[in-house]
């Protein structure tokens, strides 16, 4: 117990005495932690957005209003809900049976009209659907087919339109009018976000390496300034661990203070900049990012761990017998 107090006392005493190198170490740690604290949520947000986009990707199968004989296929001619016809139900089970299909959602003509009307209201535009004459609904019924993975979109699509006798893709049901997929859009979006992710990843990796080297260098300077003390300790018979502990305490304190300063700035940035903006920008308010408390704790532990280990490791060269 007495030893622990001795180590803590020695570590704090060293911090007081070598104030300038310690301050440099604290500032370096603070900058590193600040960068990490900004980059981790940013990386997570871009990741979350990409996944969100991937989730939205799917096929939309538009159905014909009437079949070749003129009988209605899709329900909902604008006159209230009608159950989907047998043809539609059959198509739905066919679609669900296709491998890699995660979900199949039926959007009737009425649903489609309601969605359009809703969207127009959201965008504060005139609800032109109200001007539609009486019972006429020009929107087609459709199926939204979501594949289990973006990469299976093509396979699902070709399963719905297998090659016919003449080799051209033919829909599996005569009720299908047209198929549109959001693959092109999705690929553009995921391409852009993955590029952003790469750039951010590389920048943060470089910054981290630079900061680690800086921390290591600062610690080395501080130890070099006290090499005489280390030499005396060695010569009077101190064990290597006995010599190492005060330096590790010093590193821990530097890490703790540096991380605390950085977390303070992060909290300030969050309260003053990010939170007010989040109300206006959907990207920032993405719910996938790490909770602030957890982030702070992780950063604190990383900073203290890196600084203490850095001190211990750097000291090795001075401890050769």
């Amino acid at each position, binding site marked *: 117990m007495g030893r622990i107090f001795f180590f803590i006392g020695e570590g704090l005493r060293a911090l007081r005495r070598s104030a300038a190198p310690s301050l440099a170490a604290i500032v370096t740690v603070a900058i590193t932690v600040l960068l990490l604290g900004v980059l981790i949520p940013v990386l997570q947000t871009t990741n979350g957005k990409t996944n969100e986009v991937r989730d939205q990707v799917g096929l939309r199968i538009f159905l014909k209003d009437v079949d070749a004989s003129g009988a209605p296929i899709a329900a909902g001619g604008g006159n209230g809900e009608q159950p989907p016809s047998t043809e539609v139900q059959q198509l739905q089970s066919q679609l669900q049976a296709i491998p890699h299909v995660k979900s199949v959602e039926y959007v009737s003509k009425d649903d489609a009209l309601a969605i359009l009307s809703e969207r127009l209201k959201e965008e504060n535009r005139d609800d032109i659907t109200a001007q539609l004459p009486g019972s006429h609904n020009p929107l087609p019924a459709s199926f939204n087919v979501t594949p289990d993975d973006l990469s299976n979109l093509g396979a699902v699509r070709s399963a719905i339109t297998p090659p016919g006798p003449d080799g051209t893709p033919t829909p599996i049901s005569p009720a299908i009018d047209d198929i549109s997929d959001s693959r092109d859009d999705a690929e553009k979006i995921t391409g852009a976000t993955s590029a952003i992710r790469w750039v951010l990843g590389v920048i943060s990796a470089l910054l981290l390496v630079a900061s680690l080297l800086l921390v290591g260098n600062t610690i080395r300077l501080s130890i070099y300034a006290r090499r005489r003390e280390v030499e005396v300790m060695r010569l009077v018979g101190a*064990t290597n661990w006995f010599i190492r502990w005060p330096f590790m305490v010093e590193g821990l304190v530097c890490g703790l203070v540096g991380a605390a300063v950085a977390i303070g700035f992060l909290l300030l940035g969050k309260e003053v900049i990010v939170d007010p903006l989040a109300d206006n920008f959907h990207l920032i308010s993405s719910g996938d990012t790490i909770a602030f408390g957890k982030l702070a704790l992780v950063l604190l532990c990383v900073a203290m761990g890196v600084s203490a280990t850095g001190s211990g490791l750097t000291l090795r060269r001075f401890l050769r017998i």
Partner: protein
Amino acid sequence: MRKVTKVYPGGHVGLERVSLRVDRGEFVFLVGPTGCGKTTLIKTLIRELEPTEGEVLIAGRDISTLPNKAVPQLRRRIGTVFQDFKLLPSRNVYDNVAYALQVIGASRGEIRRKVPDALRLVGLADKVKSFPDQLSGGEQQRLSVARAFVNHPPLLLADEPTGNLDPNTSIGIMQVLYRINRTGTTVVVVTHDREMVDKMRRRVIALDGGRVVRDQAAGTYTSKDESTREFATRLREEMGVDDEKPRY
């Protein structure tokens, strides 16, 4: 030491087939010109250097076979006084001595008991709160002796303890070492102060070019019963140094 040879990287020979034996409780001088291997010899004794060939035995144990982990234990059993004192400038006199006990894990009670004793022995009891840069060269050297001896090691090595000090101060240091030797501690003193060596009338081992060129008693041994004060008075008389007011 048995046929100890130390060749430094680069080919410089520090010690060449040095064989010597120092018995428990002896007071031995190691003399020779600069670069003759005195400091190399001291460094091999505390395993700061490992010999290229030969054996260094302390209390019957070959220290070159000690695992690295055991080296701190060895050093705790050997007090070392360095020519450049190696004091910690940021600590006061008391803390410099206490430090040697703290690093070996001594209890607070032990530190409180032993440090004042060691400081009294070297005559620095009234300077406990001073810092090394507030002390004279002789006082700093005595502080260094106190730190080396506070743990009551069976062997005390002193590398040029009187280097750069005036004769009177040198006698003071020798007086302290003599006092320590009288407690039963083996003392090995490295010096090139020939006059001092001759007057001390102790065993002298002379090194030159890394070899032992002489190993004999200088003059006749004085009686073991000579008190520390008598010893100092005799040295002052023989060296023609004024007997200033007693410093210790």
